[in-house]
């Protein structure tokens, strides 16, 4: 079955909920599985996502028309390449207004490209309202909830909040112990390369913890991808 051309909007209206981490994990997943991928970083001031993938990710200023042209025209290019957009939280409302104003979702669907929103949940009202607004605008677009337990821990009552999100499914990113999280900050650390060939000079403990952290996330991505392929398979219609 052919891999679908997906465009992932990794986003949240809130800061520091793990959006760039998810964008990074997803990009590394594609590199690890030898799937073509390119990324777009929309935070021109602190381009963390771009820092990890200088060969794969462009920094775009979406407040500028030229930046919008570079981004959205690229997202629609018929090149069978997965595109991952790290939507800066400050540009969240304006970004999706642009998506609406140019009719991007409709055009993407017309071209057989599937837009997928990876929406990061947290306990704030603004996060829930943002998700509901996106769902109301585009009820047919796949929205997957991402809960980064380390960046955005929720109390047991908070977990109930997640049920209110209009998502078709969810991904969970487990928390990392601080020493391991610090290793992740190294822009030279490629998670795909780490999985294939872990560096021998890395602490055994850190190596094991990192592997245990990445594994379940990649498994979730793989399951999602498989489900997508099955759902779109002509044989199963």
């Amino acid at each position, binding site marked *: 079955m052919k891999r679908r051309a997906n465009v992932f909007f990794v986003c949240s209206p809130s800061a520091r909920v793990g959006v760039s981490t998810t964008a990074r994990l997803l990009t590394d997943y594609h590199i690890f599985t030898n799937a073509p991928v390119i990324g777009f970083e929309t935070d021109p001031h602190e381009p963390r996502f771009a820092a990890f993938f200088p060969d794969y990710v462009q920094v775009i200023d979406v407040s500028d*028309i030229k930046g919008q042209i570079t981004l*959205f025209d690229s997202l629609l290019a018929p090149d069978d390449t997965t595109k991952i957009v790290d939507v800066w939280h400050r540009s969240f409302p304006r970004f999706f207004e642009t998506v609406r*104003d140019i*009719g*991007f979702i*409709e*055009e993407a669907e017309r071209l057989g490209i599937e837009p997928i929103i990876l929406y990061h949940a947290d306990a704030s009202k603004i996060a829930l309202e943002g998700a509901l607004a996106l769902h109301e605008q585009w009820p047919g677009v796949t929205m997957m909830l991402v809960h980064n337990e380390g960046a955005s821990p929720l109390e047991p009552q908070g977990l109930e909040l997640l049920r209110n999100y209009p998502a078709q499914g969810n991904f969970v990113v487990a928390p990392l112990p601080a020493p391991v999280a610090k290793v992740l900050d190294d822009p030279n650390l490629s998670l795909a390369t780490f999985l294939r060939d872990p560096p021998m000079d890395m602490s055994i403990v850190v190596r094991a913890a990192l592997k245990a952290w990445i594994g379940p996330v990649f498994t979730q991505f793989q399951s999602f991808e498989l489900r997508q392929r099955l759902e779109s398979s002509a044989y199963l219609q």
Partner: protein
Amino acid sequence: MAKKAIDKRKQVTSKNAEEARKPLAEIAPAQGVRPEMKPSVILVGADKGGVGKTTIARAVLDYLASNNVVTRAFDTEFPRGTLHRFHPDLTSVVDLTATSDQMRILDTLNTEDVKVTVIDVRAGGLTLALHALEDTGFLDAVHEGEFNFLIFHVLGSSIASLDEIEEIAPYVEDGHYFLVKNHVNDTTFFEWDPITHGKYFEKVVTTGELTIPKLNEMSYEQVEIAGVPYSTFVADKTAEGHPARQSFVLRGYVRTWLNKIADEFDRVDLLGLVAPRNNAKSGKAGK
């Protein structure tokens, strides 16, 4: 001049008026024009340059085409024409002050297959154009109910625009007179205070006001460079129908802008005013 214009139109038995109306009266019965197919003339003008009247005229042509209303246009930016550049198949360049061109426009209003005529008046020529229509007896014919007459008066942002309203008020009594605020060129319109508003607007009966939203400069510029109708640009085609490979983002912005304008035209029931028998559901700019 205004008082004179009013008096002249009311003197329907005057020799000049009768002689001017003759060609229209003679043509109409011969072609068997039925009341419900009354021809319409849409005049788009301003007494000031740079307010975007040709932009409005182009938007009107696109809107009517998308609603399957057969239309023709006359561009009075003689001799070169601006509207003509974007709609060459529909548009003829004319000199509205020349008798031969007046005949070309007005004597053919009842052409069977084209019921709607758009006239894009050259910058600064709105009053002159109305005066010419007055002299040819066209306004008398409108008064008699032979034609629908719509005027899109594109306003500038200064108080001088309000003076223009007073000047042309006498000519538009029997027409559908629309004041158009065009934000495309980034004009900031001040909200006239009630006293100022009353002072000018009480002098004229308007059918309504139209607000044309802003289109970003890059999209606007790209359409200008492409030199095609807005809908052709949105469809990513050249004038010859080949793929144009324009930016999707720019096309998207133009599509959204056209749809907002269509909403404005729907709001004032433009279709109902020009083509009652063809008043189908409004067609938005295509995907």
